[in-house]
């Protein structure tokens, strides 16, 4: 039995304290946000709210949750996220699975085609002009289709597929299963961890993304994802219009409203990611130790 010396115990304690400090640095900004969203106007105006709400009330949330504009943006973004995630996972699997067959002719060529896109990007304006020519500007599909396959994620899935023993596939083939059936009946069920991990990556990417919407959608405001709406509100884009429409006139209320809006856009992801921790750690690690 090993007995820890005093110096080791002190060392352990020091590392625990460092980790507690790091955790506090991570959490305090969120606590501050939550406190602001729950605080009374008079305390916010006097800048007295730190990490605990003062003059606790749910007014800001009531306003945000009952506002048709936010409701619509929330539902629209949730819908977009769901569609994007499902489509992206399908595309990723469609691309990764055939490429694990070593004898497939043209595999090398396709790999080159894929690798080039990882090194060279045509640039923002060529992409914009393409969207324009494809009639995707001001079109909700522009938020779904152009980003529906990530090569990095494809490589992660492919290395996971490589890890599934060939013998499973071969015995199914001998039993007369088609390749598509092998994918659906063997590879997909065995790859739940990688699907969970990539689903999280794609979903977070879509939920948090606003750059594409900012560039490609200007007039069709009903297609703005939540984050772009948030950007416009936080940065007072069209401030007069917003204030006039939504009673954002009282300054203190405005601050708690903003905070509540940010909470509203953040909480869904913060509720989900801890449960998928095991999977996304595997996903990140797999991306690093490519075959």
């Amino acid at each position, binding site marked *: 039995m090993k007995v820890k010396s005093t110096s080791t115990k002190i*060392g352990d304690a020091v590392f625990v304290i460092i*980790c507690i400090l790091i955790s506090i640095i*991570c959490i305090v900004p969120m606590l*501050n946000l939550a406190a602001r969203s729950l605080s009374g106007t008079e305390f916010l105006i006097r800048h007295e709210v730190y990490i605990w709400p003062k003059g606790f009330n749910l007014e800001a949330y009531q306003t945000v949750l009952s506002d048709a504009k936010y409701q619509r943006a929330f539902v629209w973004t949730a819908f977009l996220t769901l569609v994007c995630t499902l489509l992206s996972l399908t595309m990723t699997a469609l691309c990764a699975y055939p490429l694990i067959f070593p004898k497939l002719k043209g595999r090398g060529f396709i790999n080159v085609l894929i690798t080039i896109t990882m090194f060279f*990007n045509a640039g923002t*304006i060529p992409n914009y002009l393409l969207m324009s020519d*494809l009639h995707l500007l001001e079109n909700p599909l522009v938020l779904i289709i152009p980003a529906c396959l990530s090569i990095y994620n494809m490589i992660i899935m492919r290395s996971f597929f490589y890890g599934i023993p060939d013998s499973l596939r071969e015995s199914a083939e001998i039993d007369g299963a088609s390749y598509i059936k092998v994918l659906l009946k063997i590879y997909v069920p065995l790859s739940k961890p990688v699907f969970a991990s990539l689903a999280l990556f794609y979903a977070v990417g879509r939920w948090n993304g606003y750059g594409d919407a900012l560039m490609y959608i200007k007039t069709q405001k009903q297609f703005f994802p939540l984050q772009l709406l948030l*950007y416009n509100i936080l940065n007072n884009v069209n401030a007069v219009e917003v204030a006039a429409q939504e009673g954002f006139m009282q300054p203190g209320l405005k601050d708690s409203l903003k905070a509540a809006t*940010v909470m509203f856009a953040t909480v869904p992801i913060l509720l989900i990611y801890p449960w998928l921790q095991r999977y996304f750690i595997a996903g990140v690690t797999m991306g690093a130790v490519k075959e």
Partner: protein
Amino acid sequence: MAKVKTYTDDNGNNIIVKTGITWGQSFKKYWQLYLLLLLPIAYLLIFKYTPMRYIVVAFKEYKLNMPLKEMPWATTNKQVDYFKYFKKAFQNPDFLRALRNTVKLNLLDLICGFPAPIIFALILNELCFKRFKKVVQTIAYMPHFLSWVIIASLVSHLFATNDGLVNQMINYLGGESISFLGDPTNWVRTYVAAGVWQNFGWGSIIYLAAIASINTELYEAASVDGAGRFKKMWHITLPGIKPTIVVLLIMNLGYIMGGGFERPFAMKNNLVMENAEVISTFVYKVGIQQLKFPLTTAVGLFQSVVGLFFLLTANTISRKLGERGIW
């Protein structure tokens, strides 16, 4: 019949090597796989390769609603001047500023942001309570899941000059308020700090995996020899994750000309544009808002080509060192 190649070895014997199958056989056997690949390949061709056609805009005079082929080449004083817009870009002080800022911010991100996950992984590795370690990890991953719009909003409240939490603490400790967001130099510090905050936890995942794969017998042997905590960290853990560190460092150097759009766009403000404007935000402002397509396409092409050069160099170095590249 499989395709074969015949070689003759030193003793004059023929060696027959199967080199795979013919296209016809492959199609017959694997037609389903080709079917599956149709959509992804169509996607790559349309959304990754077709945009390259539009690069030619950098060398032309852009006319609205005119097919690319009919657009006239760029001209200076009625003389064809293909590189007109590249010259213009390099005479444009705004672009030169954006270029400088891109490299500067990326370098600072690298210097501050690269060691942070390594240090954090080393600290986590010293924790002996599994539960506690897991809680710390979960908390540290959280910032990675926040969008830049949200992080920018958090930063603007925490670092506000009058009433931000950070300045209130500084005042409490007897210091003067600091203009973290309004002063260009301080803004750069805040920007880099936000990057470290967002990424140190997430970035540690790779290093933790590398640490986990170190042979535990090494630690036991070192303990027997009387090595302390820091000796083990220095002589076993760090050498154990060195390959991972080297590869990630080189690949990160390869992205020095790159640059996301969402982070600088969300964090910039009008007071600090001299330090905050980077190439991606410049292209957005001048290209998409002011519709100066040839100039910004030229800028984008310049960025892509230089980026490609850096990446290929990084990749080559990585392979020379006997490590994997990104392909």
